[in-house]
């Protein structure tokens, strides 16, 4: 077991295509870090560089404090789980599991003991003599995991190991992998494009985009304080509602204008974000999580008038699409394109440029019907503010004020 460190790592293909740009990431001993991002963002390349399957163009990768740039994969003492499992089809499950041990000249008896123990833990004892072709997808996945575990390596590298499984099995294996990692306490770097996987499995999550690391933090911090519009739109399902809003100064107050609605910003919100005052007279991007969008009955703060487009009943809650008058984000390049909220309705409020569909997670007991008008309450304390130019979040500073959050 050891720590895994990327220090100013770059990967350039040919002369121009940059896959990974100045990656700095340290995975502590026993830590589970998930590298997440849309496809083509360089996350798999980063993982393969750590495994030694891809050359490092520039920078250093250290495993357990030792620079491994020029070491062959077999000398790095890491284990990798591949997206398509990469089980050796001509070998039995037993031979697949024992292969790494055999290559490392572990004594036969010891090999047998370890393979059988792993097989027992993973529930593969009955199928040691089978070939991979005779296994189901979930069983192959287990064998692939077992092959990594049995070696007792310094670090696990996992490249989207769950993406070939069906949805139900994926949820099950997700928990299983997290449990195994916790039990073994092996440093793990896990790559996925699925932000739900990232949030549920990782101690820390590293969000990557276009080869550049955006933010590394605990899942909760990532969710509560995304560092820019991309992370805000990428993390969370359904994604954060994002729109443009004006900021104006009215006397001592800062006011946020969403469409025609006025939203007074409480003093503590402004105090937390000193930079927000500089945007007075200009525009910012604001975001609000679907669970923070509320129906306005009994709310004495600012309201947004909206119209219900669609109600998706999820059982425990309902997901409501509400059209409000506001400006959609102009800068599509700053957000995750796959997580874009649904476009404006057909024949809705009228002006397409001025309509935003707000996703809200509402209590299932609330009776809401498509086509109805609805008032939406927005608590300014739950808003996220971003610079429209750079996409960066407007930084918050710690202000020791116990702010009461509307409920």
């Amino acid at each position: 077991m050891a720590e895994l460190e990327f220090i100013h790592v770059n990967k350039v293909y040919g002369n121009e295509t940059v896959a990974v740009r100045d990656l700095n990431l340290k995975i502590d001993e026993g830590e589970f870090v998930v590298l997440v991002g849309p496809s083509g963002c360089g996350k798999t390349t980063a993982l393969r560089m750590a495994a030694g399957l891809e050359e490092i163009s520039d920078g250093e990768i250290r495993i357990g404090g030792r620079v491994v740039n020029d070491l062959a994969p077999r000398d790095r003492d890491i284990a990798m789980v591949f997206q398509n499992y990469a089980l050796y089809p001509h070998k039995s499950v037993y031979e697949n599991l024992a292969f790494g041990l055999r290559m490392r000249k572990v004594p036969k008896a010891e090999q047998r003991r370890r393979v059988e123990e792993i097989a027992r833990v993973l529930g593969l004892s009955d199928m040691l003599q089978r070939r991979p072709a005779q296994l189901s997808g979930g069983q192959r996945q287990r064998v692939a995991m077992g092959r990594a575990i049995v070696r007792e390596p310094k670090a696990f590298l996992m490249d989207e190991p769950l993406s070939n499984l069906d949805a139900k099995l994926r949820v099950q294996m997700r928990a299983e992998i997290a449990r195994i990692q916790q039990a073994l306490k092996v440093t793990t770097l896990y790559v996925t494009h699925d932000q739900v996987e990232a949030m549920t499995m990782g101690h820390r999550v590293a969000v990557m985009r276009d080869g550049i690391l955006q933010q590394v933090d605990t899942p909760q911090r990532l969710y509560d304080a995304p560092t820019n519009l991309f992370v805000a739109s990428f993390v969370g399902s359904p994604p954060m509602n994002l729109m443009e809003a004006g900021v104006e100064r009215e006397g001592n107050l800062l006011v946020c204008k969403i469409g025609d609605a006025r939203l007074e910003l409480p003093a503590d919100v402004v105090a937390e974000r000193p930079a927000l005052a500089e945007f007075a007279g200009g525009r910012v991007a604001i975001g609000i999580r679907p669970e923070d969008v509320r129906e306005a009955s009994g709310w004495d703060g600012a309201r947004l008038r909206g119209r219900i487009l669609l109600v998706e009943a999820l059982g425990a809650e309902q997901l409501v699409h509400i059209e409000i008058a506001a400006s959609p984000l102009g800068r599509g390049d700053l957000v995750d394109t796959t997580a874009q909220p649904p476009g404006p309705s057909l024949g809705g409020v009228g002006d397409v440029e001025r309509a935003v569909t707000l996703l809200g997670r509402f209590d299932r007991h609330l009776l809401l019907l498509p086509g109805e008008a609805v008032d939406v309450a927005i608590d300014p304390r739950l808003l996220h503010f971003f610079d429209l130019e750079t996409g960066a979040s407007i930084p918050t500073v710690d202000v020791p004020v116990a702010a009461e959050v509307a409920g």
Partner: protein
Amino acid sequence: MSAITPIAPTPVTPVTTRRSRRRRVRKAGWNLLGLFVLVVMAFPVYWMVATAFKPGRDALSYTPQWIPLHPTLDNFSEAINRPHFWDSVKNSLIIVSVVVVLSLVLAFLAALALAKFRFYGRKGVIVVILGVQMVPLAALIIPLYIMMSKAETTRGLHYVLGVDKLSGVIVMYLTFVLPFAVWTLRGFIDGVPRELEEAAMVDGTTRFGAFVRILLPLVGPGLVATSIFAFILAWNEFIIAYVFLQSPDNQTLMVWLASFTSLRGTEWGPLMAGATLCAIPVVIFFLLVQKRIAFGLTAGAVKG
């Protein structure tokens, strides 16, 4: 049950029967066509073997004799006792085994490069390999002959190349067996996911170790299949052998078979007996290796 759940509609019978009857007729048509093709393919082989067992009179009879009524082994003994039979067998075996081994080794390495590495001119090489096979062999005979006779007088080359030399024929056979073998093997190597070797390398093998322990066993069936085709190509080749191997000591079995046809006519009985004998090694070779191919088909089914 059906009283409670009237959702499942009762099938409309007349339409389905008509459709299924039409389908059955179409199926029977395809089967007939398949049977016809089988007969066209298999009959000449049967006729060859049957004729080999017929005495000379029956072989030439105008009313076709579907099965040999007076089976005899005379034709075989006559064929075997003909001059140069055993020389021809020896020559054919030497040429074919050298061609198969050399072409497999060279083609495997070439196919590996084409499948695994991205180098400048890779596409060009692939196109040339395919294109070379389009050139009719007969058109090359004269240029080849000129080259070979020149090579005979060139120092160094004359050890290997030249007219009436087995080694010269081997080199010429390689020119058409190799491209074919490279092409086939490339397909087999491409079918093995790259991750398998990578997994082996992470598991502790060297690059070469991954090649030997993972890639080679998986491509094995491909090697076997390719070797069968290379064997057949080289074994059955006639024109080059006929033109270049002039002395009777050097001729191959195919050239030896041609000697049954002379100015006085063709000795059909012994010719068919000889042809049957020539087919036997191919059949034996195939029987020896076909088990490996069958295994290969199931192994290839697992992708990753």
